């Protein structure tokens, strides 16, 4: 009975995108293997994973630029099957922006409306509105080659939004920008998503980006979804050793019969005799010391798990400094250790 109740509860949740057993095969290789994902309305969703994990194939299948080998994609209640992109209510922002080099900014943004037969004045007026939204109205008459990477990206964003998509798909949108611009654009993307109230699906290999932006983080590896959930959940309770390592800032420690993950900033360095207040400890020689400003990153080489790392607040570290090669133990509280599957 509970399953029925749960089932009904799920059905009433309004979803923007639902993937049901979606599979993508290229010849004999399977890029995406039987994945299921539900993205509620107005969600900022990040598909996160190393290159070749299937995140881009997944995005391209949602976009309609790649055929689905198996399974169904439902966008706003409609099974999109093999519909062309524009009929799905999706729009994509390409990794290299893919602006038309022969058209100026206004005509690039107005392109989608031109294809729908909107008259020149009307579509240009609308395009100017969108350029204003991304603060690019000053550059309306410029060609893409006369713009910087960040400016091109804003134009690409305006072009993708002009068809009023229900879901915006972004393929590694920030990877081509320099670190400073990346930060600004990141804030801007989040702001736009909040203001428009539509779902964004953002493919990235940067866990920092995913944590900063997403309401829903989907970690992928080898064509499957390893874990999905809110960013705090992914970071604090990684389900597998892969997720813990990929998200970074974790020690994955092997114990008898399994492994657990502990955040490096929750670990402490103790004197060789383990103190009684801690639930766990592992010993070895100090193998690296890196001063990072607010924290000092101390690496300890252990026999059981290789190098483990503690991020020690700088004042604590310098109150009792360690030297390379010295014997030390890494300790943590029982509540900070989360079992992970290997």
């Amino acid at each position: 009975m509970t399953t029925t109740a749960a089932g009904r509860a799920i059905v009433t949740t309004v979803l923007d995108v639902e993937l049901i057993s979606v599979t993508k095969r290229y010849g004999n290789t399977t890029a995406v293997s039987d994945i299921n994902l539900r993205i509620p309305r107005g969600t900022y969703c990040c598909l996160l994973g190393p290159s070749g994990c299937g995140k881009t194939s997944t995005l391209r299948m949602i976009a309609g630029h790649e055929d689905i080998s198996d399974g169904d994609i439902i966008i706003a209640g409609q099974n999109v099957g093999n519909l062309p992109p524009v009929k799905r209510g999706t729009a994509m922002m390409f990794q290299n922006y893919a602006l038309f080099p022969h058209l100026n900014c206004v005509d690039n943004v107005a392109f989608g409306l031109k294809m729908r037969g909107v008259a020149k004045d009307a579509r240009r007026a609308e395009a100017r509105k969108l350029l204003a939204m991304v603060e690019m109205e000053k550059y309306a008459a410029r060609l893409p080659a006369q713009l910087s990477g960040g400016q091109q990206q804003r134009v690409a964003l305006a072009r993708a939004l002009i068809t009023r998509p229900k879901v915006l798909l972004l393929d590694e949108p920030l990877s081509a920008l320099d670190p400073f611009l990346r930060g600004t654009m990141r804030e801007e993307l989040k702001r736009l998503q909040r203001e428009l109230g539509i779902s964004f699906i953002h493919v990235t290999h940067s866990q920092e980006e995913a944590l900063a932006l997403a309401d829903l983080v989907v970690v992928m590896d080898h064509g499957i979804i390893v874990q999905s959930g809110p960013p705090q959940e992914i970071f604090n309770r990684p389900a597998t050793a892969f997720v813990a390592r990929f998200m970074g800032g974790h020690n994955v420690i092997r114990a008898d019969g399994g492994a657990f993950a502990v955040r490096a900033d929750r670990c402490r360095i103790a004197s060789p005799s383990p103190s009684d207040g801690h639930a766990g400890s592992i010993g070895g020689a100090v193998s690296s010391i890196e001063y990072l400003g607010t924290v000092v990153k101390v690496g300890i080489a252990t026999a059981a798990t290789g190098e483990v790392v503690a991020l020690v607040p700088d004042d604590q570290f310098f109150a009792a400094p360690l030297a390379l090669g010295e014997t030390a133990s890494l300790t943590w509280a029982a509540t900070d250790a989360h079992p992970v599957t290997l």
Partner: protein
Amino acid sequence: MSSTIKAAAANPTARSGAKPGGTSAGAWLLATPLAIVLGIFLVIPILMLVVVSFLDYNSVQIIWSFVVQNYIDAVSSAATWQTFAVTLKYAVITWAITLFLGFWLSYFLAFEVRGAAWQMGLFLVCSIPFLTSNIIRTISWIPALGRNGIVNSVLLHFHLIHQPLTFLLYSQFAIILAFVHLNTLFMVTPIFNSMMRIDRTLIEAARDNGAGFWQTILNVILPLSKTGIGIGTIFVITLVMGDFVSVSIMGGGQSASVGIMIQNEMSQLQYPAAAANAVILLAIVLIMVFLILRVVDIRKEL
């Protein structure tokens, strides 16, 4: 010119056309060999041509006196105008057909054929006919198109016709056919080159914005192939305008072209008249090239 420089200045990714301060002796020295070659083989012959076009002549010799009579003769003769008109007609028809063929062949090679190896392989196949000379390729149409040629024999055999088709050879049809055959590759090569530079994600972006096949062709591929089309147009127009071999072989001596007219005048030792017509032809072709360059910026392709 100034607009291009402005565009280049405003465009951070554009290659700068000229570097400042390049007038050192070393630069002149580097330019000398090419200047000598072009001087001897291009500038001096053209100057000689222009000089000769202003000389007088009689039936046996050139007379060293400055006259403009050759030009007056040329422009006052209805036959000359007709000949230029028919040559221009060949050029325009050949251009239209080779453009159509060149665009779609290039499109097929660049966008439909998967894999660089297949693309280059098929492209090389296109160039195989060029391993033989122009004249041989033209003459080889004769056994195919003649009164008892392959085409007529096949059509007669299948009772599709009852009389041999006579327009196939020694006709304007034959001339255009030969021109198209000889010149299509000159259209394919630059257009293919332009198309290979089109970023594939632009096609996807067009599709993402709701463009269908023809909309993508018209709004993305055609404008981005413009430079290649311009270069191909220059090749085809100049080759057809200057031709005399194909017209005389395929026209069976009954068709005129500016090239044939010049050749006839030379065979009658009317060198100044031939030179005047050559200068007029050169001027017309240069004007056409200039107009094409006004429309497309071929430096994009360099």
